[in-house]
């Protein structure tokens, strides 16, 4: 028992607590965000990036990772406000969710063929069938 407690504590500390937190996140709750962002890819849960990064991304939608995703001002404002309000933590300077260290760690063992089937790392739902409900445990 004397060994077990510190060992458990160590294990708990070592576990990437933050990454586990992201296995289940609130799905996007705003109808405009769901519709507009979700038109081309999963409407990504706000917790995947911090408010500052969301602001950067939504401030330049006409150059959105190589695509013109520009939107009328009223919709943009709604989207920006939602993500800034609901954002989580992320590494500074990395705009892509799939560049975040927790994302890379979690997908380390995923083979190339699986990514090829999904077509893109943006296509969470190809493997995470509950992604639109905020479920990424699988």
């Amino acid at each position, binding site marked *: 028992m004397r060994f077990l407690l510190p060992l458990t504590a160590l294990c708990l500390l070592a576990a990437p607590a933050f990454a586990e937190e992201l296995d289940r996140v609130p799905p996007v709750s705003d109808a405009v965000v769901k519709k507009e962002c979700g038109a*081309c*890819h*999963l409407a990504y849960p706000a917790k995947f990036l911090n408010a500052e990064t969301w602001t950067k991304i939504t401030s330049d939608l006409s150059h959105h990772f190589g*695509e013109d995703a*520009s*939107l009328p001002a009223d919709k943009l404002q709604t989207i920006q406000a939602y993500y800034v309000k609901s954002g989580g933590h992320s590494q500074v300077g990395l705009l892509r969710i799939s560049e975040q260290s927790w994302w890379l760690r979690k997908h380390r063992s995923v083979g190339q063929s699986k990514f090829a089937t*999904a077509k*893109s790392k943006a*296509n969470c*739902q190809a493997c995470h069938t509950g992604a639109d409900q905020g479920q990424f445990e699988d």
Partner: protein
Amino acid sequence: MILRRLIPAALICLAAVPALAGDPARDALLADYAAQAKQADAAFTGFSADRGKLIYTTRHADAKPEINACQACHGDDPSKAGQNAKTGKVIEPMAVSANPKRFTSKDDVEKWFGRNCKEVLGHDCSALEKGDYITFLASR
């Protein structure tokens, strides 16, 4: 007496019109594009599903290879679901027969023509092109 017979007949005719013409919002959108097309070219007589099909299928050498035609993302058969060439997301069918909601929101239609015409065709679509395109997909 004649009037008494005419009224029910007229009612039947009126009731039959929407059924034949499809969605009122789509019809209004097409009427709007038709007016614009007529203004741009007095010789305009109507939209053509054949010209629309050509827009849907034509490949554009100047566009990014993975999105060099409408059908690159929307599929060879518009009555089936397509897939975003970049993100892999499934796109609901374009053909109205398979997806009756298509082309019923002016905001949505204008947003997608605005983005995709530039990206794929390399220019803003004219009202004639938009009307032809919708007419083609409404016939599918």
